């Protein structure tokens, strides 16, 4: 057991996977000599040489190349520096990666990973602070994971690399420096399994990525008012752990769903709709959606913090659901 930063846990997973499997390679902008702008790929180039490559700024082709390289015997891991650039990858994901698994059946597998990071709150501006989760989670044939703890950062990264299909790993710029225990023998975390971050009986706070931390803080605050909130860390955005959601709702009968992408047609909308589909009868009040305001993310601090989901907004939503 060791305390590790989230970025270090990801790095450990990459090291381990590259050591175990010579077909794994890592590529992306500034991932080699510099070790990645968030230092997630640090030391890999030194250890694995040409299997770690700095690339030109060519997200669109690089993603398409990850798809086809994966079809032909390798396990590419591509870093897309900011989730804001994921639109450049979507043609490759939705028109290429998505289709072959079904169209060509067992002829090919596509074991590639796209790593990216989203999230606001650090003054990076409208083009470097978005969480475009819904764009990615919408695509059939992809798996999408979003670890929040360092242990899951390692576990889900290992699982993503070993998965026979495409997996997008959504990291978060404000998690890289968070610390947590990671077991020495930490293996893959099963994709498609939520984590019960906090047990509660009155309301379910269902969250993804860094919003889990905000939900935990909200739960703490609600506890002060005598409200017992359960916090579910979804960990996997697609495929969804439906059982975890319905099980929690059966107990609490109230829910707030929290995701840092925009609300409209966002991932939070899917969560609300999923509950509509599968737990309507358990609901004593409408599910509350908490998401980034549907507008560009401004640079200036007071504006940016007015736009992103906060503990206060989660608490308020919970109180509204319980009113």
């Amino acid at each position, binding site marked *: 057991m060791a305390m590790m930063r989230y970025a270090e846990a990801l790095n450990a997973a990459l090291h381990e996977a590259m050591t175990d499997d010579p077909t794994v390679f890592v590529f992306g902008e500034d991932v080699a000599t510099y070790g990645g702008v968030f230092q997630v790929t640090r030391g890999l180039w030194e250890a694995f040489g040409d299997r770690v490559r700095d690339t030109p700024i060519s997200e669109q082709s690089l993603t398409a190349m990850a798809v086809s390289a994966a079809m032909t015997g390798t396990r590419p891991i591509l870093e897309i520096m900011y989730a804001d650039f994921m639109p450049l990858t979507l043609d490759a994901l939705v028109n290429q990666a998505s289709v072959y698994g079904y169209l*060509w*059946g067992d002829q090919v597998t596509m074991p590639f990973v796209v790593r990216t990071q989203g999230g606001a709150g650090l003054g990076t501006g409208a083009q470097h602070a978005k969480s475009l989760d819904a764009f990615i989670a919408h695509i059939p044939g992809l798996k999408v994971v979003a670890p929040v703890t360092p242990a899951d950062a390692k576990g889900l990264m290992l699982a993503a690399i070993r998965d026979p299909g495409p997996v997008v790993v959504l990291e978060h710029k404000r998690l890289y420096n968070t610390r947590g225990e990671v077991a020495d023998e930490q293996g893959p975390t099963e994709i498609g399994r939520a984590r019960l971050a906090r047990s509660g009986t009155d309301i379910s706070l269902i969250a993804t990525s860094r919003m889990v931390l905000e939900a935990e803080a909200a739960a703490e605050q609600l506890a002060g008012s005598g409200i017992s909130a359960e916090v579910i860390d979804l960990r996997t955005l697609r495929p969804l752990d439906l059982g975890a959601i319905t099980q929690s709702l059966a107990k609490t009968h109230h829910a707030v769903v929290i995701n840092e992408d925009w609300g409209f047609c966002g991932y939070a909308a899917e969560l609300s709709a999923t509950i509509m589909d599968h737990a309507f009868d358990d609901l004593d009040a409408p599910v509350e959606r908490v998401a980034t305001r549907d507008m560009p993310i401004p640079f200036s601090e007071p504006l940016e913090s007015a736009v992103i989901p906060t503990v206060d907004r989660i608490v308020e939503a919970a109180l509204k659901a319980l009113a």
Partner: protein
Amino acid sequence: MTAAPATPQNRPSLDEHVDMHRLMVVTRTLEEQLGVLHKAGRTRGPIHRCDGQEAVGVGATAALDPQDYVTTTHRGHAIYIGKGLDPRRVVAEILGRETGYNGGRAGHMLVGSAAHGMMGGNAIVGASIPAATGMALSIQMLRQDRVALAVFGDGAAQTGICHESMNIAALWRLPVVFLLEHNEYGLTAHHSAQSSVPDLHVRAAAYGMPGEQIDGNDVVAVFQAVARAAGRARRGEGPTLIEARTYRMEGFSTSDKGGYQASEERKRWAARDPIVRSRTTLVDALGTARVEDVEQSAAEAVIAAVAAAEADPYPRFVPHAASATHAGPADRVTEDA
């Protein structure tokens, strides 16, 4: 180091040429049969024929080894046939039958057969380019004796991914051959309305790679250019851009309303029919009877394949597990460690 390939000067052998001729006739017959089926209302969706362009796909694939990869476009029939796919299963796929290479799921634009290294037609213009480039990266990583061939059109050469892929391929000296099948049009727009330069092989210089223009209606010239480029790729010398000039004799697709191709232009190109030209050479070498025999049996085989495919059953729908939105049931939510 792998052994240097046979110098293209010795090849194609006469036997290889006969076989390419046969495959061109297979392709042409297939295209014509598809035209007939379409007119009779027995096809579905648009079909993109490559009549007049057969030498490109057939010559290029003949120059490859079986383990080499090819990616192509929405107009890939010559490549499918050239790479050794069974015409009957190709037709079955085009007709949406269970017996098609992809069980009718893919249709004519997306046929894939990994066993043949036929890594897909592709209906996203330009997508064949990074696809082959990524395969070449895989080959390089695995240190395999393989090359990847990207076939794409003059329209596709204007896409952003073309630029990105060529730059990366040249930078990393990837074992890929870029075969630009220049048929004068991108859909209905003449290349002069799409490309800022009339000759596209000049763009190779923008990436520091060799580029050459060839007569795409000469199957031997195509074979030799691709063999040379594949040799370079295999020797670790990186990519090559080959611009094969040819012409699309039929419309863009079966839904093309026409009206934009000058009849003068069509006539000029009809006179350069790749099959007629190939035949002339072969008749000189082998006599008319032998060549006609090859042609007739090729055509008959396709006609039989079409008939057989048409009698094949349609697939039945089965949901696709790997596209699932929900994970399988779990007993419980995992407890926090």
